[in-house]
């Protein structure tokens, strides 16, 4: 039985659940309490040495990279309808997924948590995070850019990244029914999952949809896999926007 272990019901969790629904594969969802740093508990680290908040347990494997886990699921099931036989289209699917995750995932988590979490809760969490011995350290250019952006500019920076990603999605859908090629693929699942989270976290997202994007979004909502994943996540009690920062 496949098992999603997740600390939130955001894009990664939703995308994994939708993929499993598309493949008709059964799964359970277990929750992690990220506010208590359960992702860094010894038990969870057996599944994810890095302490990632979303893990898929499948066929004896523990996969803590949701995007790559989606690719695994589709390839293991030989699901040609989620990928492509054309290497160039397969590249596009992978590239679009990676670009959208890179542009949207972190910024949405930041915006969601900061806008929807009471200040007192934020301060308490950040104090405890600072003292946690397992707290990961951000390094490299990510740390340099984070340090270079004043705190009061981070929200606008994050929103700009999300808007840019949405513009990329809109451009791809302007003349195509799906994000890559002429068929539905994993790229559509990932994009929908991220936009779903964006709509929950940000104001005015749906209103900004270009007509073609609105039509695509509606078509995605009508898919059985999407509504089934939505129900499963709701039943699990996972909140869409409880992904708190791990880099203080």
């Amino acid at each position, binding site marked *: 039985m496949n098992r999603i272990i997740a600390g939130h019901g955001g894009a990664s969790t939703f995308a994994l659940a939708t993929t499993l629904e598309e493949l008709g594969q059964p799964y359970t969802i277990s929750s992690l309490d990220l506010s208590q740093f359960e992702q860094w508990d010894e038990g969870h680290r057996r599944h994810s040495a890095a302490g990632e908040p979303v893990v898929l347990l499948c*066929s004896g*494997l523990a*996969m803590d*990279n949701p995007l*790559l*886990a989606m*690719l*695994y699921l589709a*390839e*293991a099931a030989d699901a040609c309808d989620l990928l492509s036989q054309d*290497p*160039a289209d*397969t*590249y596009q699917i*992978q*590239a679009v997924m*990676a*670009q959208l995750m890179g542009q949207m995932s972190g910024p949405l988590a930041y915006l969601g948590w900061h806008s929807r979490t009471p200040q007192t809760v934020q301060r308490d969490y950040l104090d405890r995070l600072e003292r946690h011995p397992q707290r990961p*350290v*951000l*390094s*490299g*250019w*990510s*740390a*340099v*850019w984070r*340090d*270079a952006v004043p705190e009061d500019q981070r929200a606008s920076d994050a929103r*700009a990244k999300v808007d*840019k990603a949405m513009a990329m999605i809109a451009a791809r859908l302007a003349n195509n029914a799906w994000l890559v090629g002429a068929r539905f693929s994993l790229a559509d699942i990932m994009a929908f999952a991220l936009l779903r989270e964006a709509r929950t976290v940000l104001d005015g997202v749906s209103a900004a949809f270009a007509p073609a994007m609105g039509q695509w979004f509606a078509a995605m909502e009508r898919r059985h896999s999407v509504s089934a994943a939505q129900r499963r996540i709701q039943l699990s009690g996972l909140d869409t926007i409880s992904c708190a920062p791990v880099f203080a």
Partner: protein
Amino acid sequence: MAQGLSASQGALLASMDRPQVYTWDPNSNSGKPLFVLAEKGAEFDYHYIDLLEFEQHGADYLAINPAGTVPTLIHNQRTFTESTEMGEYLDAALPGPRLVPTDPAERYAMRLRCRLTDIAAESISVIGWNNSLGPMVRSKSPEELERLIARIPTEERRVSWRRASEASFSDRQLADAQAKIVDYVRELDAVLAKSAWLAGPGFTLADIMTFANFYSLPLSNPVACQEADVPCFIDWLRRIYARPATMTTFALARSIAMRAFKVADMLNVPWREDLP
């Protein structure tokens, strides 16, 4: 040649299946497609883009890649700009040895290793920028630097380059980057203690993508890779340096990647005398 075509038209048609690679030296992301093509034994056309002269922001290059990033691959009239994913495309599209496992679980492990390397490579890049690339860029006059940065196509990347060209990294940023490199090399060493290559028994894109970022470490960051501390990692470096495709690729170097020959000497890996 098809009847009715001129020689140049015929040559153009023939070249359409020949990969066109626009990139800098065989170093980091720039090097990834070059190493892959060499391992596949593929013929390709190499268009050198000098990052230190900001050629990636010139009008000619922006016409093929409006984002102004390197590398760019053009093949069969399709354009590819993501350096890790383009490796999988090249492996699937071209004949030659397989660099991507057929087993989905091994494929996941390969892709994960590529992702983890990309994260760790940020820290190598910061140290490298602090020690060598940054001073090279800053040797330009402020006016010339500003002129070059003004050509960058997007505001986000102009901000990034401006920050990078001005970057005076804090002690904490440099220390954290160094710690990340040391930890990651030890992680690689632990993996290689259990398997011949980074994603299992076979040489894969995981080895190529990681090597493209870590090939110079014995020279650029010896503290992070003392053979006594990480013997399996050093052995892995030697084995890749000994691959014919590796030194053939480094022979394309005009700038930063030329240090590979010094590293090969440090590792006592012989290379052909006809290479520079």
